[in-house]
């Protein structure tokens, strides 16, 4: 019996296909509804909030502003200190707006009413007197430090740090060629289909929060810090969550206002974001790299020297601090370049705060280094494969320590490149596209390579319980929200315990039921939560062997477990799994459960992806096909892994071609799906996804590396390269919108 390696069907799909799923807005809880009054100004002093008319309306319970809410919201939203060292940062205090608003869309008051229609009516009846002050909404302007987002910081720069390795100036001087470059990603909106939502209920002693989140345990810790309530008295429950993509791993003032309102009113309070509110709750990306590279005639890249600027928006969110610290480390990617200087800068602007988004730092770094590889290829008139062949880290250098000290664990990058070129039929498709272009079509083929850092420790929790009747409950600190990793983990545990998978139930996302946890992000769940679950299962099995040994009056070493039976090796006596399970709860044994917090570290999957892009006469580009060949370590469930390539690849289509959050002094102009273009089935490509059979394992017990982000990490570079092939233009910023394509079409 072996489940791992097979495309086992997802265990809990019935509720989704029959309408019995329960997302936070589906919860039947008798609660007041919250609605928010939002700033029309990017930067203004709040003179007065006129609540009177709203308070007279039927169903309206009360209206709170920052003055009231911040008595309960004691501490501000801060960075995720598990991954971000706050010391080099300049961080403004971020609570509910009080006295001043810092971006258009920032909430300035919350209405609590008996139903959501009345709450929204009342929010519209509230007028606010503002005194507008100078705002700075572009990163270029903000860099001048003329208009400050936060006066008290004295600068718009939140972070400045230079990442230096080797001697880039000298390497540039001795290079055969030098070239100036400018590469970047513009702002986008992650857009999970389920908008954010929260229900808070404070009953006088304990706070319960039902929350559309990826990180219930971190949320508990943050709520504890912010509201001054011990973690033991806070329960955070993550119901079904309709996608996150990294954007549901940060906390926003609206959510704090809901909790604060519940505490002040002594009543449950709920809020579900409208799509417009969701689009204003989370923006992502926006980074620019400007600098110079040096390369030699043979195509080897020898130096990178430049400045990386990352926009923060008006405040430092829980997750955005990751980007300016991880992007530089990953710019060398899978290549041997060792002389680099990356001046990393993070900049506040009067715009919607920015958060991480699927891939978080690795898409940015990969876009930069892959654009650089393509630039070298174009300058030297070499093909993309040759340039990468000449730069990839060699197998005999593994494990390889990159110039910034990251240790790449396992892999054979060159072999994968060569295999990938064959499996994806790169050369023949490239030739096909050339012939199509001769016939007048605008079609192109492009590829890019990626090395990903994922897994991210520092630890994860798992517990395996065997019930009295021999069932198995696996409680994990990971928090699947669509990936299906609960099924993969059930496969691992069923194999480890040699029991039918039907017996295994995986639970997560309730801080009272699962004592500790980190969560699902960074392509880590199967590796770190899976390895923790396997470890806990081994420990439970060991306990069961001891129970069986006592029952059979044997030493534990004499008991062997196999396929549901505990066998006394010497005497041949046997006990069935169910008998031992029941004995575990006889009053003589301590019960059958084991929990672990398993330490973990980063691991490095890699791969090569290819796209076929077609452009029409109006500059509208379509990705017709997307092909992927990845070494993600051992693959536990191929269908689930492929699903991640499909989903990430489609988000890559959006990032490369369509998705742009336009912002000006009046705020964000993309506030519905009519003006923000998420790919539909029509714009989405056909996918072919392959995984390396001779994989390179991670150090995790599961031998897995991770696949959740791969296609969005490399996809934008792949698609842009294919677009260049199709049009003959050069594009260094995502998204490449039709107007820009049209200008460069030949």
């Amino acid at each position, binding site marked *: 019996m072996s489940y791992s390696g097979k495309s086992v069907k997802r265990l809990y799909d019935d509720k989704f296909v029959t309408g019995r799923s329960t997302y936070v807005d589906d919860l039947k809880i008798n609660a007041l509804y919250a609605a928010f009054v939002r700033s029309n100004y990017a930067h203004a002093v709040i003179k007065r909030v006129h609540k009177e008319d709203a308070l007279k309306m039927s169903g309206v319970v009360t209206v709170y502003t920052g003055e009231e809410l911040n008595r309960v919201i004691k501490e501000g939203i801060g960075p995720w200190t598990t991954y971000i060292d706050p010391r080099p940062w300049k961080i403004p205090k971020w609570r509910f707006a009080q006295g001043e608003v810092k971006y258009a869309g920032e909430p300035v008051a919350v209405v609590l009413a008996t139903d959501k229609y009345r709450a929204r009516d009342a929010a519209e009846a509230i007028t606010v007197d503002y005194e507008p002050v100078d705002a700075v909404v572009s990163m270029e302007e903000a860099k001048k430090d003329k208009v400050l987002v936060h006066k008290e910081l004295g600068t718009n720069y939140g972070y400045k740090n230079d990442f230096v390795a080797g001697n880039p100036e000298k390497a540039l001087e001795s290079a055969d060629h030098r070239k100036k470059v400018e590469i970047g990603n513009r702002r986008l909106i992650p857009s999970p289909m389920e908008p954010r939502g929260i229900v808070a209920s404070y009953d006088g002693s304990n706070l319960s929060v039902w929350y559309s989140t990826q990180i219930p345990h971190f949320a508990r810790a943050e709520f504890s810090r912010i509201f001054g309530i011990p973690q033991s008295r806070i329960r955070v429950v993550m119901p079904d969550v309709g996608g996150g993509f990294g954007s549901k791993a940060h906390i926003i003032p609206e959510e704090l206002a809901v909790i604060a309102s519940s505490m002040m009113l002594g009543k449950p309070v709920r809020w579900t974001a409208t799509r417009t509110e969701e689009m204003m709750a989370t923006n992502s990306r926006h980074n620019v790299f400007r600098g110079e590279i040096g390369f030699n005639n043979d195509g080897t890249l020898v130096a990178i020297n430049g400045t990386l600027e990352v926009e923060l928006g008006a405040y430092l969110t829980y997750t955005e601090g990751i980007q300016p610290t991880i992007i530089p480390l990953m710019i060398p990617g899978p290549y041997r370049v060792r002389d680099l200087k990356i001046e990393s800068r993070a900049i506040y602007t009067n715009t919607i705060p920015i958060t991480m988004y699927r891939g978080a730092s690795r898409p940015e770094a990969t876009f930069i280094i892959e654009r650089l590889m393509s630039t070298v290829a174009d300058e030297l008139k070499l093909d993309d494969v040759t340039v990468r062949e000449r730069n990839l880290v060699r197998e005999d250098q593994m494990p390889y320590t990159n110039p910034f000290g990251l240790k790449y664990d396992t892999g054979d990058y060159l072999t994968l490149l060569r295999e990938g070129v064959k499996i994806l039929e790169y050369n023949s498709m490239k030739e096909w596209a050339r012939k199509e272009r001769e016939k007048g079509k605008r079609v192109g083929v492009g590829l890019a390579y990626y090395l990903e850092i994922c897994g991210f420790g520092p630890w994860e929790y798992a517990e395996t319980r065997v019930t009295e009747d021999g069932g198995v409950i696996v409680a994990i600190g990971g928090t699947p929200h669509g990936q299906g990793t609960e099924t993969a983990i059930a496969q691992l545990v069923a194999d480890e315990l040699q029991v039918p998978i039907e017996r295994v139930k995986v639970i997560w996302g309730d801080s009272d039921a699962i004592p500790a946890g980190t969560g699902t992000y960074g392509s880590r769940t199967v590796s770190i939560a899976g390895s923790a679950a396997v470890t806990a299962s081994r420990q439970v099995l060991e306990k069961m062997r001891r129970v069986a040994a006592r029952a059979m009056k044997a030493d534990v070493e004499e008991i062997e477990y196999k396929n549901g039976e505990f066998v006394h090796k010497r005497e041949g006596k046997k006990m069935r799994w169910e008998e031992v399970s029941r004995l575990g709860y006889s009053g003589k044994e301590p019960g059958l459960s084991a929990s672990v917090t398993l330490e973990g570290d980063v691991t490095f999957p890699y791969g090569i992806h290819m796209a076929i892009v077609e452009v029409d006469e109006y500059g509208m580009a379509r990705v017709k096909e997307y092909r992927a060949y990845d070494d993600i370590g051992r693959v536990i469930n191929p269908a689930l892994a492929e699903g991640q390539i*499909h*989903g990430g690849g489609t988000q890559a289509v959006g990032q490369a071609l369509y998705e742009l959050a336009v912002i000006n002094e009046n705020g964000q102009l993309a506030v519905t799906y009519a003006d923000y273009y998420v790919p539909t089935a029509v714009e*989405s*490509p056909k996918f072919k996804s392959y995984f390396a059979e001779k994989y390179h394992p991670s150090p995790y017990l599961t031998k897995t590396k991770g696949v959740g982000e791969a296609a969005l990490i490399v996809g934008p570079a792949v698609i842009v390269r294919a677009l260049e092939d199709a049009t003959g233009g050069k594009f260094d910023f995502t998204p490449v919108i039709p107007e820009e394509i049209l200008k460069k079409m030949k």
Partner: protein
Amino acid sequence: MKVEPDQKVRINVKVNGVLHEAEVEPRKLLVDFLRDDLGLTGTKVGCDTTTCGACTILLDGRSVKSCTLLAVQAHGREITTIEGLSSDSKLSPVQEAFKDNFALQCGFCTAGMIVQATFLLSQKKDMTEEEIRDSIHGNICRCTGYQNIVNAIMDASRRMKA
């Protein structure tokens, strides 16, 4: 009919075979009537602007987006929601096909997607992949990249012919 401010309107709607008599505010959206008044939370709200399709239901057998209809517009009509597609806990061919083809991830678009697919297959059994893609372009999925959804609908079509 003239309705005064704050006056409610009586409607009769058959939902999943059950007749409901209710008093609703004229402005109440059909999706809120289904979710908040009848407790049929299988139908989701993803965008409020008729773009994403998470709220797709069948109104007299035709697929509509219930976020852009008023509850009063359903008066005297018949509605099928995702909860009404399976009977006696037996899944419909479309529901089975979605499960078997890994056609869902987070599940939030799934109800709308399955209702839309059910409608399509009631209109035409043999659709090309391109036709299917075109016919679900009003239902946004952010997780799956659509390929497995398209496969599931083609698979369901085969199952319904079998």
